[in-house]
């Protein structure tokens, strides 16, 4: 089995999860696809350094993907000039047809503005500590805390209301 065949034998079963992880962090499918492609190329170039084979691959690949996504977020966030805590929800919602079936939680998270959504996803999906999130996004720890606090309040009120409303306000 060539190195390329071995890589894809490990990669294919994870591809769907990886794609959605990138989508959750970056908030849209097009950027998720680009990030996944970039992360996969990085992983393939470093594949010979992977220790632990198939068992270690999912965690290793996911770490490379999350690093790639947070690099993209850092670049994006640099161009957001002013942080307005009250401005929590996205300016434009994605068309209803794009909403995946199934998860009430994801539907609530995806309506958050990027700055808040990224912190929630990195915390609850990727299980990163607040300090790790601060480092990954290159923002102060206090900002991570306040974003998470505000986002959780919004999400709670959204989920509790249960009226199908897609935007929440604190």
């Amino acid at each position: 089995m060539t190195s390329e065949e071995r890589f894809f034998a490990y990669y294919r079963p994870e591809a769907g999860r990886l794609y959605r992880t990138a989508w959750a962090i970056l908030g849209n499918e097009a950027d998720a696809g680009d990030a996944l492609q970039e992360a996969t190329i990085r992983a393939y170039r470093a594949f010979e350094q992977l220790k632990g084979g198939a068992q270690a691959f999912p965690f290793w690949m996911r770490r490379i993907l999350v690093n790639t996504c947070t690099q993209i977020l850092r670049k994006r966030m640099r161009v957001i000039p002013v942080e307005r805590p009250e401005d929590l929800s996205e300016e434009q919602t994605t068309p209803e047809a794009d909403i995946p079936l199934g998860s009430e939680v994801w539907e609530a998270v995806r309506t958050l503005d990027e700055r808040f959504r990224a912190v929630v996803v990195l915390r609850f999906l990727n299980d990163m500590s607040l300090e790790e999130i601060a480092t990954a996004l290159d923002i102060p720890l206090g900002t991570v805390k306040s974003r998470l606090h505000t986002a959780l309040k919004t999400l709670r009120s959204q989920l509790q209301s249960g009226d199908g409303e897609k935007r929440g306000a604190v």
Partner: protein
Amino acid sequence: MQQCDRIQQDLPSYLKGELPLEYRAGIQRHLSECPACAEEAAAVNEIGHKFHAGLSDWVDQGVCPPELMARIEDSIRAISAEAAHRHRPWYQSWPAMAGAVAAAAVLLVVMGGQLGMRDELAAIPFIGPVATHLFSGGDPNLTGFGLIPLKVGDSHGGIALAVSELEVGKDQTRIHYSLAGRDLDTEADAMSYAPVLQGSRGSITLHTVTVGRKSGELSIDAYFDPVPTGEALAFSISQVPVKMPSGSARRTGPWKATFHS
């Protein structure tokens, strides 16, 4: 109240045990005395579990779109082709071959001069003409090629380009590149994959294209007129042949890469 606000912001870290022991004990004391913060802690804990489970479920149900998977596979195939080219045996390496030929030619020149064999040198296959050329004070730039490794890639319509080498000499310029893609027709004429090279003074004349073929990927060398050192070069392929169910067709790019000589 200010203390409550601060503590509520730290609840996610407190609940995950990420805070220093002393501060954690302080929060614990506060929660035992403040019903509002205790209620908030329970709610944050509950929503934390709910979001972890909900997002994990959503991610576990994911499927990578087939067109994205094909794009990723094409990129990896192009990288593999590039790596295979880089790791080919030394004797297949163009600069190494040029060096070996020149060294052998120099040896023959010396031998020819000493042993009176000059007239017979040209009859020796391959090395002979080079030796004769050197013997008669020929072109010293024969071995004067500089190899500049590149890692430039572009992907378009499921077909990926990776430019991996630029070799600049007085007589010619060689560019090595790979094309890979599921739909790529690898059986077409070599000139079907020919690139265009633009320098600061316009298009640089292409002389030959040689192609190494494997299923779904091509390893190509294109030979151009010489280019000056430090020149900004724009390399592009506008169309490539693709396999279609209805027969052959051409896919329009462009696949582009820019670099300096």
